[in-house]
């Protein structure tokens, strides 16, 4: 039996441990995705929350792992990566919308296609809304 200590990635404070049999081949990285002490979690953010925010912004898990490493696992640095990802996703979405429909609805509900008003969504029979 050998003990693998679970340490905060920033200060090596011990969160806990795995006591695993000697014949089990497992690296620390295979056992633990992330560990941070209470103090550094408060200071640098929660790993899972950062992952969730990144994925919600449209990023992939592979890119998340690369980007959070580049951000030194700190929310202060990582926030910029989330924002970039969100802009990238929004741009992709809006580009797709134009390609699919070419329509834009303004605040009054007027539907414009290629810059020309084709109807209003508040009208009962709005052919241009289709």
């Amino acid at each position, binding site marked *: 039996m050998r003990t693998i200590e679970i340490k905060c990635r920033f200060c090596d404070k011990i969160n*806990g441990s795995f006591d695993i049999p000697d014949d089990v081949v497992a690296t620390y990285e295979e056992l633990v995705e992330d560990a941070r002490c209470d103090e550094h979690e408060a200071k640098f953010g929660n790993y899972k929350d950062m992952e*969730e925010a990144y994925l919600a912004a449209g990023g992939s898990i592979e890119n998340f792992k690369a980007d959070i490493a580049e951000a030194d696992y700190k929310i202060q640095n990582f926030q910029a990566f989330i924002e970039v990802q969100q802009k990238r996703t929004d741009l992709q979405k809006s580009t797709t919308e134009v390609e699919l429909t070419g329509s834009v609805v303004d605040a009054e509900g007027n539907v414009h296609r290629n810059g020309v008003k084709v109807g209003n969504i508040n009208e009962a029979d709005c052919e241009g809304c289709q």
Partner: protein
Amino acid sequence: MGIVNGQTADANDFKNASAGAADAGKGVLLDANGNISNTMLRRGGDGADGAFNISSGTTTLSFASANLLIKNYTSFTISGTATLAFSNPHANGSGLIAYVQGNLTLTSTATRGIDLRSMGATGGAGYVSGGYICGDGGRGAGFIHFEVGGTINIAAAFTADLSGANGGNASSGGAIAGGGGAGGGGSFTAIGDTITANAGTINTAGGNQGSSITSGGCTGTNNATAGTDSYGNIGTIAGGTAQGGATKTTTAPRFFSSYVIGGYIFMAAGAGGGGGGASGCSTSAGGDGYGASLTSKAGFSLVTTWGKITR
């Protein structure tokens, strides 16, 4: 040789631990408490992953995009102010099955001793076209299942958070659009013979649906499919309601009878909320969230058995 009709059976014909085929035909020897021993039941797994023990900070384990993470611990402890969190779930949701040979001790006073939020199925994409930008469905929560050979101790101060995420808000500029459906709550179960404390707070609440945008007398509606109460039937499906996100919080863990043998346990991560639709003046629906089905078992992250008296 085993028990044979017409012949006298002696003590050797009854076993409290099976050696496999060599014990075919023999009877079960009850222990001092009149129970079938855990050795015979093989409850608690083989301990191959050793002891897990955390007492402070947040430790995050990865599902590595798999539906199911199975561990065989000799003991499992979350104490002090520790939090156990998870990351990288499967798109259909993920869960942990922890076989624990010895004791399960959950006494941490952290806000979330176990955090399985957003480890369930992804929500459906909201309808998007032109000015219609509907909210995406919220992500469900994951599940966790303990099968314990020793003692279960879940203190009153302990909290596990398996709540579903809220649906996204519609964001179109003045156009009618629906909010995303709520993510479903996850499941928490534990099986064992001896319980020191059955307390704590297990939050399996569904999320709330996202807000819709009203315009011209029409309101975008939520087209999410309803989930199911995770405790409606034994170990069936997790999932908060999609519309309104009705709260499903229990103040105590649910334990199954220790003498259910060969029973089936069906577990699944929380269903994702459906994407918002733009119906009202239009009839465009959002996408469906992943989830489990009571009838087809589609979407189940896990279908398992326990307590089989076999080798």
